[in-house]
């Protein structure tokens, strides 16, 4: 296996940042208990006019897009046959698995009748016309596929086990290796379907979403930007976890990833701009209210992301790669928040800002996710040898 060099990161598991993240998560979990006891309204600012808040938009829609690294990497390595990016695949897949699992988990406190979520699995309740149904089914299948994709890393840890368990684990490992191509191609198809679907959710909302964002092409916008955000996530993860970027060889790889990211973000920018011009919504961007402010903030973040990785010279400076990745992630996230929160205007003057407990639940879930990621890379062979800090 190509992953033979992957090893757990050495060092203490519960470092100060991990403990801090776990504390934030604990506060979030406390508010979750209140949510389950007294209902959604007790902890959030959600109302009948603003039924989707930060839980669904940030934890689910933005969260799923930010961890598209697994999708972007699988695409690059296996479809475009760029094997040299292989070292990015496992950390990206792990982040994807965690991100998607937490997105799925978030639904269990965001939806009002969480026990009804299991109706997604009962054919009599299926509703094929619904974009949300398609997204739900695809995300569930994708979590299963991601588990299979990351399974070799878990098995490698227990590969030396004696007895029947060890033998069957090794058998399963070889089975996974043989049918990897079937798993990987599902791992590319499913995100393509549900990431576009996460945008497609906006279509039925019709005029309730500001024309600056509403469009029949909103699915395409989400799909293209999520790939760029995935590359951005891989780059930023590399910078946070390793110092190999000083090495010219890895620098070269990150440079290439940044080029892909830039290209996708550029296509996204052109698509968005041409759509705003075509629909005639541009005057809305000059109303100097919070909607137009948010629109320009999004555009500037996207352009900054492109600007930092604009050409070869700019990409030679590691800081630029990092900033390019970061701005792409933030810009893409703001785009999603703009579509579903800022741009969602069922009537004029609707304002929504999440309450403190609501924000703590959102941040707690993100913190828990990052803490688990930090713990897993120190326990399982995820990162390749030599790239540990």
């Amino acid at each position: 296996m190509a992953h033979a060099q992957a090893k757990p990161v050495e060092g203490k598991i519960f470092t100060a940042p991990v403990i801090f993240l776990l504390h934030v998560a604990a506060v979030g979990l406390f508010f979750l208990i209140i949510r389950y006891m007294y209902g959604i309204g007790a902890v959030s600012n959600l109302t009948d006019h603003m039924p989707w808040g930060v839980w669904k938009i940030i934890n689910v829609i933005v969260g799923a897009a930010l961890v598209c690294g697994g999708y972007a990497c699988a695409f690059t390595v296996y479809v475009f046959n760029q094997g040299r990016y292989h070292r990015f695949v496992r950390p990206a897949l792990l982040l994807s698995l965690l991100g998607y699992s937490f997105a799925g988990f978030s639904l269990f406190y965001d939806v009002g009748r969480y026990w009804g979520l299991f109706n997604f699995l009962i054919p009599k309740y299926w509703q094929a016309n619904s974009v949300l149904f398609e997204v739900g089914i695809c995300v569930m299948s994708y979590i299963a596929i991601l588990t299979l994709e990351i399974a070799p890393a878990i098995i490698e840890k227990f590969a030396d086990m004696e007895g029947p368990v060890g033998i069957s684990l090794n058998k399963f490992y070889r089975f996974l290796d043989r049918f990897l191509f079937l798993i990987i191609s599902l791992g590319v198809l499913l995100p393509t379907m549900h990431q576009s679907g996460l945008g497609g959710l906006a279509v039925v909302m019709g005029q309730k979403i500001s024309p600056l964002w509403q469009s029949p092409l909103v699915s395409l916008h989400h799909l293209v930007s999520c790939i760029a955000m995935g590359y951005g996530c891989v780059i930023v993860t590399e910078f946070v976890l390793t110092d190999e970027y000083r090495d010219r060889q890895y620098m070269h790889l990150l440079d290439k990833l940044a080029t892909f990211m830039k290209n996708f973000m550029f296509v996204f920018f052109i698509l968005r701009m041409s759509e705003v011009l075509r629909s005639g919504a541009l005057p809305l961007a000059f109303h100097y209210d919070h909607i137009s402010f948010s629109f320009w903030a999004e555009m500037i973040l996207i352009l900054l992301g492109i600007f930092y990785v604009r050409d070869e010279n700019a990409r030679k400076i590691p800081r630029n790669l990092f900033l390019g990745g970061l701005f792409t992630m933030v810009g893409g996230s703001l785009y999603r928040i703009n579509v579903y929160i800022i741009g969602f205007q069922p009537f004029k003057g609707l304002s929504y800002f999440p309450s403190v407990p609501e924000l703590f639940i959102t941040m707690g879930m993100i913190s828990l996710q990052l803490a688990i990621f930090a713990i897993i890379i120190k326990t399982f062979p995820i990162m390749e040898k030599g790239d540990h800090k």
Partner: protein
Amino acid sequence: MRKNSRRSFLKGVIGAGAGAVFSPFVSFKNAVAEKLKERREKDVGMLYDATKCIGCKACEVACKDTNNMPIEYDENHLWDAPRDLSSKTMTIIKLYKGENGEQSFIKRQCMHCVDPVCVSGCPTSALKKLENGVIAWDKDACCGCRYCQMGCPFSIPKYEFDAAYGKIVKCEMCSNNGLLAAGKTACSEACPTGALIFGKQKQLLKIARQRLYKHPEKYNGKIFGEFDSGGTGVIYLASVPFEKLGFPHLPEYSSARISEGIQHTIYHNMIAPILVYCGLALIAFKNIHMGKEKEE
């Protein structure tokens, strides 16, 4: 010459780009034109004529009474008539008073759309259009995702945010309490002036058109719900323009048509996803298994 070829290349690229951007709209418009949903003979609805309404709120009381809906208190535990639709109030009479003295009552409730967005969006078939055109809610199917609230162009469905096990609340035209089976609704039965009448949608439309034709001076000239958002089961006549009465200006098709048009084009018999999957699997197989040999 080189310049020329570059220019034509650029033209081609721009043309292709523009085509890619615009083609969804062209095909979408055709798709919409073909598939617009129509009123069926059996579909029932209501006609509310604001010019006949005296604002007595008998319909509100009857609705609360029949459906066992709670009274709405303010923060001092004093109760008053509700100000808007909520998870405790499924229908409401409001009064519009303009600056120039024009005024009109208006009843709000679920519109029971011909092509309902909530039904199209609901992932677990909790909202369904019944045989008689009524949009009903199934508590066993609902997962409380509130996509219906996000989608509804009239923002009608309400959720019980203050309850640990909240329900979606909206008018089900008394299909939930057995009155509809007897051929009536609580609110229309309670109406003393005939401002609200219950009947088959197509007949109600005829009545509304006759009223418009006989007394054009009494009305604003529009039957709200005849075509709005693909048509609604509850239709309205009023003297004051509907925008002033709180109705949004909607296109003549439901946004569910756009959404379903896109979905059905991409996922038509699942052919495209399956083909893409086969292609991806082939490429991945080649890259993983053939590539390996080269490495060794």
